């Protein structure tokens, strides 16, 4: 078990260094990406600024708490791009061209190989950076901020990453029937977009839906709630459970759906 972990960590490091070298070949792209990301993050902040000009709290969240929530979405997005997201975005292309073959013949789990194939620092760098700034700014303006919550915040960020990864596996497993993956990733994109709303806005059926079917209400809310000091153990346990469930189901479904891959003819 420990060996497997070390092996995949080494692999990740190797893929990351190759991708960084690759990305440095295109510096202009990098600058444009960062600029765009920061712009859209600022649009988000202005939206909430206007919203909070009229009301004090949304679902019990104050303005500064919401900044942490929105910032966390940016941070999670960047972490996802750094670990797996880009591979899923390109999966349709790999399947269509038959380049997915290599992932099936090399001695690495396909779910990990696909994730690591194109880990990107720069694709969501502006969003990540801006997210971090928002989280820091919000945290500095909290009335009851405790430093001890930071490590738990980080831990739950990684838990959210696991949910996100499991969700990607479940949705993208369908690519072997559809061949194109663009529509699938639009689904994932909207999923992440709804993550910036606090979980408290959902009630009844909606709450269940956005917890167990599309777990976006947990992704940013749980870590942010910990940092602002409004999380209870129930929420944390629920998030851990959902992460374990989505990861397990995602891997099972993914490994089963690979059977239906019909490689492109050469």
């Amino acid at each position: 078990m420990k060996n497997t972990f070390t092996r995949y960590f080494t692999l990740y490091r190797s893929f990351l260094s190759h991708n960084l070298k690759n990305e440095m070949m295109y510096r202009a792209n990098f600058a444009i990406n960062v600029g765009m990301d920061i712009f859209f993050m600022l649009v988000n902040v202005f939206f909430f600024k206007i919203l909070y000009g009229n009301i004090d709290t949304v679902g019990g969240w104050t303005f500064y708490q919401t900044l942490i929530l929105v910032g966390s979405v940016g941070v999670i997005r960047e972490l996802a791009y750094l670990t797996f997201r880009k591979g899923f975005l390109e999966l349709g292309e790999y399947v269509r061209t038959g380049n997915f073959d290599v992932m099936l013949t090399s001695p690495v789990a396909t779910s990990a190989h696909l994730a690591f194939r194109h880990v990107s620092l720069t694709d969501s760098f502006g969003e990540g950076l801006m997210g971090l700034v928002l989280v820091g700014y919000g945290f500095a303006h909290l009335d009851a901020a405790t430093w001890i919550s930071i490590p738990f915040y980080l831990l739950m960020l990684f838990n959210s990453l696991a949910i996100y990864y499991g969700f990607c596996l479940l949705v993208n497993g369908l690519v072997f029937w559809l061949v194109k993956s663009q529509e699938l990733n639009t689904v994932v994109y909207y999923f992440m977009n709804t993550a910036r709303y606090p979980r408290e806005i959902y009630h009844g059926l909606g709450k269940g839906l956005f917890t167990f079917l599309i777990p976006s209400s947990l992704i940013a809310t749980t870590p942010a709630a910990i940092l602002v000091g409004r999380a209870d153990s129930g929420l944390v346990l629920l998030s851990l459970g959902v992460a374990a469930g989505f990861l397990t189901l995602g891997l099972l479904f993914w490994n089963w759906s690979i059977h239906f891959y019909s490689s492109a003819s050469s």
Partner: protein
Amino acid sequence: MKNSPRSPFVRGGLGEFKQIGNYIMSVIDVKNLNKTYKTHRKESGLKGSFKGLFWREAVYKEAVKSVSFSLEEGELVGFLGPNGAGKTTLLKMLSGILYPTSGEVSVLGYTPWERNRDYQRQFAIVMGQKNQLWWDLPPSESFLLNRDIYGVDHTIFQRAIDEMVSLLDLKDLLDIPVRQLSLGQRMKCELVASLLHQPRVLFLDEPTIGLDVISQEKIRSFIKEYNRLKKTTVLLTSHYMQDVEALCKRVLVINHGGIVYDGALSALSERYVDHKVIKIRFDSPQAPAPPDTLSGVVEWDTAHAVLKVPKKEVARTTHQLLSDFSIDDLSVEEVEIEEIIRHIFAEQPDGAGKRIEE
């Protein structure tokens, strides 16, 4: 670390296989392998596409039909067949990329599509039309990544690189981005990247496709040398007769998904090809029709001629041509592989896809 129960081998130390009893050391064992693809027929035009949304006709294509063969350790065998005969599908099943519809395969004692990591560390597949190198980075970077993917020891890695770089003459290319390399140089690098983990079984799908003659020759001699040095079992598909002639003693000919010939290459060309092709360019314009004394003329005009001549007659005919005509250029060529294959396939019943309505 599981072995297939059908395997006659048990795994010993260091990835070696021991032989039990009197089994012949076969590395690849294929029994009654079948693969049927299901596709859908679509009527042409927008109307057809719209109709296809609600009702589709399923077409079953038998890409591989009850194929059986086995390869011994260190053999270098050529796979011949026209496009769409099922060669690539077969290699993909042996690599675990595709699942068969039915049948059994054992490679090194493993069932490929179980994708056992121990199996994956011991074989490689190189497809001439696919690229696994990183386009914007120098090949040396891709080699390093493959080292980590296959978990190759650093000293062994360096030794393997040095060895292959000198065999393929790649020293000056290792630090140039792949996109700036020629097709031939890229193919050589593909080979190196695939062989870093020193596979015991190697599948090559059209390794020389699209390459110039010199690059083809270089890759051919490399494969031959590598097979001789490492005793790697190689299964190769190619369109070029020269590839197969230079490399393989034994060939498997496949058509419509089934094996129609399994045996020595020499027997194949003796059995099916008894002539060569002579091509001539005349020095000065000739009569528009060939003289009656000349037999086997396929094409003839005032400037060129092509003759199909029995092998035994080649020397005599060439002599006759050179003495009777003023010739600028003359070449004697082997009959192309496609033609031999066409010849063989002319004897085979057709096996087109069956259609079943859904």
